[in-house]
C-alpha cells in the first residue's frame, strides 16, 4: 500500500529547474550590466528583479486560492498539497518583495520603510499568508486541517482586494503614490528586455519551487502513513509474542 511512490523526479522537472537556473543567472549578469539611469542611478537595476518577485507572490496566492477551491469541490488531498506548496513559496516571494523594495527604498527615498500604499498592503499580505501557513501547521486530523485550510485559502484571496483598496485609499487621501518615479518612456530597450527575461526566469523558478514543495508534501504524507502502518505492525507482533 505504502509502496506507491508519488511524483518522482521526472525530466520535465529537471528541465524546468535547469531553465530557471540558467535564465536567472542570465538575468543577474545582464541586470548588473544595465546602464544607470539619471534619477536612480544603479538602483534602477532593481527593475530586473523586484517587480518579478512581486508578480510571483501574486501568482502564488492565486494558485493557492484555485487549489483551495478545487479541494473543496473534489476533496482530493493533492489539491491541498498544491495549495500549501504554493502558499509557502508565495510567502518567501512576498518577503523577498519587501526586502528588495526596502533596499531600493533606502537608497531612493532615504528610508528603509515608508508607509506607502503598496508596501503596507504587501506587509498585510505577508501576515495574512503567514497565518494561513500557521493554520496548515496545526496538529489536527488531516481531513479537518485540509478543509479548514482550503476555506482559509479562499477567504484570504477575498480579503486581498479589500486590503488593497483600503490602504490605497488611506494613502491616496494623504499623499500621492511614490511609485511613479520611473516613467516607462524613459526606460531604454535593454531594461525592457532584461525585465521580460526576469519575469520568465522568476516564474520558472517559482514553478520549480512549487513542484519541489509539492513533492515534499506528498512524501511527508506517505512517510506519515508508513510510520503509522509500521507502528500498527509492531503492536500486532507484540500481540503474537505475548501469550
Amino acid at each position: 500500500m505504502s509502496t506507491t511512490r508519488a511524483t518522482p523526479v521526472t525530466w520535465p522537472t529537471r528541465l524546468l529547474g535547469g531553465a530557471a537556473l540558467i535564465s536567472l543567472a542570465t538575468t543577474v549578469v545582464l541586470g548588473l550590466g544595465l546602464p544607470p539611469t539619471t534619477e536612480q542611478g544603479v538602483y534602477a537595476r532593481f527593475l530586473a528583479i523586484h517587480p518579478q518577485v512581486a508578480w510571483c507572490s501574486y501568482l502564488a496566492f492565486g494558485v493557492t486560492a484555485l487549489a483551495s477551491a478545487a479541494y473543496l469541490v473534489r476533496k482530493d488531498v493533492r489539491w491541498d498539497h498544491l495549495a500549501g506548496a504554493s502558499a509557502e513559496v508565495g510567502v518567501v516571494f512576498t518577503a523577498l518583495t519587501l526586502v528588495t523594495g526596502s533596499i531600493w527604498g533606502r537608497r531612493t527615498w532615504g528610508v528603509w520603510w515608508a508607509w506607502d500604499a503598496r508596501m503596507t498592503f504587501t506587509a498585510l499580505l505577508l501576515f495574512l499568508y503567514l497565518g494561513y501557513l500557521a493554520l496548515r501547521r496545526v496538529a489536527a486530523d488531516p481531513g479537518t486541517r485540509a478543509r479548514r485550510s482550503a476555506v482559509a485559502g479562499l477567504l484570504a484571496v477575498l480579503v486581498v482586494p479589500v486590503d488593497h483598496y483600503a490602504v490605497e485609499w488611506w494613502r491616496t487621501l494623504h499623499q500621492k503614490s511614490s511609485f511613479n518615479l520611473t516613467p516607462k518612456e524613459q526606460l531604454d530597450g535593454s531594461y525592457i528586455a532584461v525585465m521580460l527575461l526576469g519575469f520568465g526566469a522568476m516564474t520558472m523558478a517559482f514553478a520549480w519551487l512549487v513542484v519541489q514543495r509539492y513533492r515534499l508534501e506528498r512524501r511527508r504524507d506517505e512517510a506519515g502513513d508508513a510510520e503509522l502502518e509500521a507502528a500498527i505492525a509492531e503492536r500486532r507482533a507484540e500481540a503474537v509474542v505475548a501469550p
Partner: protein
Amino acid sequence: MWRDAALVAGKDLRIEARSRVATNQIAPFAVLVLVLFAFALDPDRGVLSRAAPGLFWVAVLFASLLAVQRSFSVEAADGGRDGLRLSGLDPAGIFLGKAGAVVLQLLALEVLLGVFTALLYDTPVRGAVVLTLTCLTATLGLAGAGTVYGMLAAGLRVRETLLPLLLLPVVAPVLLAATRATEGALDITTTAEAWPWIRLLSVFAVIYLTFGVLAFGALLEEA
C-alpha cells in the same frame, strides 16, 4: 435560517447573561487598554485626544478577539459543537446567530468604551448619525470575520495563539476605515470624508457575512 439564527444568538446571549464573562472580564479589559494607552502616550500633550478614534478602535479590536474566542469556547466543553452539528440547525443560521450575538455584545461594549474615551481622552462626541453607522458597519464586519476565523480555529489545541494571527491582518482595513470614519464624524468640517470609509466598511461586512453563510456548512460538517 433566521429562526435558527435567533435560537443560536439567544443561546449565546443567555450564556453571557448568566456567566457574565463579557461584563466582568472583556469590558474591564477593554477599558484597561484605554488606560494603558495613556501610560504609553503622553497624556498632557493632546496626543490622546488627537489619536482617540484610533485608540478606541484598537481597544474594540482586542476586545473582539476575546469575544470571538469566548463565543467558541462556550461550545468547546461537553461536546457542545457536536451537539450544535447534530441539532439539525441550518449552518448559515448557526453562523448568523453566533455572529449576531457577538455584534450585540460588541455594540454594547462600544457604547461603554465610547463614554470612557470621551471622558478619559477629553474627546467631544459629535456626528451621532455617522458615528452610529460607523459602529454598526464596522461591528458587522468584525463579527462576521471573527466568527468565520473563530470557527476555523475552534477545537484546535493552538486556537488562542492562532486566532489573533489569522484575524488581525484581515480586520486591519476595518481598523483603518473605522478610525477614518470616526475622525470624520467627530470633526464637523470633515464629515463628508467619512462616507467613503463607511462604504468600505459595508463592503467588508457584506463580504464576510456572505462568505460565512456559504462556508459555515463546510466548516461544521467535519468529524
